[in-house]
């Protein structure tokens, strides 16, 4: 096994790490960088709990090899709140009780943020299909979908009044 030296940017900070080439980005985040907010629910891209942004694209970090992160920009749940201020989606999830056990929540938030950046006015159907790669077993999705759509509406309102 040959260890590789990777240079990357995580939540805006330059990060160097050593990794076996077959290690997943998820394992690097969790075991080497102590960023355990990204969760492993399946390790096969079926649950979305490990969702992160890779150069601005939403991906499952369990399906990215560590060396693929070389020179890339990674954003995780740990970078979503800025300077101690929750992102509107994070606040709305709290306000509406859109989490129960909370294990899938980081993945949902990262995925929902990616949706709203791309589509500020998603329909319920668009929201549901966009989030179909994120499994939640506690909530039945109802409050999650409402939280994402409510946040979208508020963010649109803020843009109008800004």
């Amino acid at each position, binding site marked *: 096994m040959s260890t590789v030296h990777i240079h990357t940017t995580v939540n805006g900070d330059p990060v160097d790490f050593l990794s076996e080439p077959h290690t997943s980005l998820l394992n690097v985040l969790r075991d080497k960088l102590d*960023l355990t907010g990204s969760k492993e629910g399946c390790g096969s891209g079926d649950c979305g709990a490990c969702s992160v942004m890779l150069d601005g694209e939403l991906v499952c970090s369990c399906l990215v090899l560590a060396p693929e992160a070389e020179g890339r920009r990674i954003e995780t749940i740990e970078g979503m*709140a800025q300077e101690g201020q929750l992102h509107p989606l994070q606040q709305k999830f709290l306000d509406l009780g859109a989490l129960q056990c909370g294990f899938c929540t980081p993945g949902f938030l990262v995925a929902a943020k990616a949706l709203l950046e791309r589509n500020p006015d998603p329909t319920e159907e668009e929201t549901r299909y966009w989030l179909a790669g994120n499994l939640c077993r*506690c*909530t039945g999705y109802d409050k999650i979908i409402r939280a994402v759509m409510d946040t979208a509406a508020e963010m649109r309102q803020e843009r109008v009044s800004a």
Partner: protein
Amino acid sequence: MSGVLEKQELKIVGTRPVRPDGADKVTGKAVYGGDYHLPGMLWGAVLRSPHAHAKIISIDTRKAAALSGVKAVATHSDFRESDDSDEINAGETMIDIDAAAQMCLAKDKVFYDGQPVAAVAATSAEIAAAALDLIDVQYEVLPHVIEIEDAMREDAPVLHDDMFTQGMPETPKTASNVSMRLEKITGDADAALDDADVVVTRRYTTQMVHQGYIEPQSCVASVSADGQAQIWCSSQGAFMVRSVAAAITGMNLSDLRVVPLEIGGGFGGKTTIYLEPVALVLSRKSGRPVKLALSRDEVFRSTGPGPGTIMELSLGATKDGILTAAVMDLKYQVGAFAGSGCGAGVMHALGCYRIENTRVTGCDVVSNMPSTNAYRAPSAPQAEFAVECAMDEIAEQLGMDPIELREKNGVKPGDPSFSGAPLGQVAFMETLAAAKSHPHYSAPLGPNQGRGIAAGWWVNHGGESTVMVSINEDGSAVVATGNPDIGGSRASMAMMAAEVLQIPMQKVRPIVADTASIGYSMLTGGSRTTFATGRAVCEASAEVVEILKSRAAMMWGVEPDQVEWHDGEARCTAPGSDEAPLGIKQIASQTAKTGGPINAEIVVNPHDALPTYGVHICDVELDRETGHVSVVRYTAVQDVGRAIHPSYVEGQAQGGAVQGIGWALNEAYVFDANGRMDNSGFLDYRMPVASDLPMIDTLLVEVPHPTHPFGVKGVGEVPIVPPLAAVTNAVSHAAGMRFFDLPLTPDRVYAAINSQS
């Protein structure tokens, strides 16, 4: 009960504040089982049986142990010899220690694909995995059996040569795969069926299903040189983990401290353990902390799902729609060991209704599948599915509204319960009425759509809990419980404490304490926590209020009964007193002068939990060309006592409904010809995804529990009961024919429609 608890105007209970553990969960800071690390920690890995049924001839671990970086190897022989009769009460199930140990590491036989056989701990996960490849296990493969009826055949391979069916008038002399039989009789069911005007006789089946929590089990164990040990893990009960792990490894409970981490879903599946005893052994042998974590594949293959069933039912009624007779036989597919079986099924099957003449029989059948465990209202959804489908047919045959049929027969306060004792303040009637008047129930249906309704109930539990409420020097409070918070219980605990103390909820910090920091508490399960532990929180808070009053009295030099507690402050009612009120902060800051710290510990063990009821309305649309069913509208109406935090009560109803919808439509264990699970991942074990579902409307029916301080009834389990039949009845109406076998996958529905036409 203290006067403080009789206060009726509520300021906090019933509102929707942000949960105290919320911020960490939306920022990724919350520490779950798999997130815990210790310096010097080793990585463990478990070798599993590739066979569904085999004798272990030998296990040679020498090569693995010799691999550089491997620090310990464990097999069953590292556990203590357990006494066969050792059982631990885990709320809704009993944990047999001998069986639990074999589910951690097999003894002399393997009973299912994926059963652990040996384990290693090494300096990296890669080395641990490589070491597993070096373990040589010799098996003698035995014929295996999966299906209930195959396992009951006389020539079936017998899993356990010491399994003699329990519950028979005379215990059989030969071993079989039927672990127990159960019978409950009232009146003369056969005669009553003969006399009934209308009888529906049907056979129903359901498949083995998994709880599907998104967090796989994970733990870290560390054993010190003096034998004291700690475990950090997520579970539904740290005390349960301590009991089972200590029993399997032969430890004193006082030497083992279990620290509960955040739990990523349980639904009953984390009411027993699969890893912790192995991690303890590996840590003891290596002298270093050891982490063990399951993969998703391992979760499916080696943890305890909910049982499949075969159920036969004859239900009889008069032409006026009065149920008169039921004969029911329930067979539960409990997996490799006597697991979560027919007991609660027999108890719950007919429990929504008053039926004079009943005979319900049940049996548990073992076969070469993972050993079942509790899954949300364990065993009730299956049995009630059968009854609620038959109810729908009776209503149809009588030309009667299905809710009206249920209203005619539904249980009311004072009716006999399963045990014969009269039911308390149950609210099934109110729940039915609320469903009937819900706009959904009378909304028009589109083409190819059908509507189904079904009811369901769950008994709910009380049980032992310990709570400590402490007042800090600044007047804020800490509420410590021993119950892991699965879905928001810290919010409800803090709200109840704040309501009693009459201080803002933000001043109350709820924590889930470890096993060395609080007294024993039964695990979080059975819908007991907000009810039982919540009662302890109320009582401890009330006791604290009494102490605060007495301290204020001391400060004022008056009698304690001359002090009243309002809005978080003491007011002096002594005649002629003009003392300014003393706030909680002022009192708390003076404790060194008034008698020391202010806190109260309360233990409870209530037995007066009340059952709760749900009525669900489901609309589906059927694609007749493909057999594909879409749920297009869904409403869950539920009797909740009183909702402490309505958002999380609604969340229980929504989550339970969707688990039930998944059970009805797509979820099932699939085994290949060799008895290996063929769909051990989220790709092919098809739980509902967001795009499969509509919004799940909820309607909370509040008929408070008369003896709980805030009227709480258990709410978590009921909502998984009605959906199986609500969906099936809806599909039956959309298709114009009846369905009896779950799941209603498109190929099955298509085949049924086409075999009819």
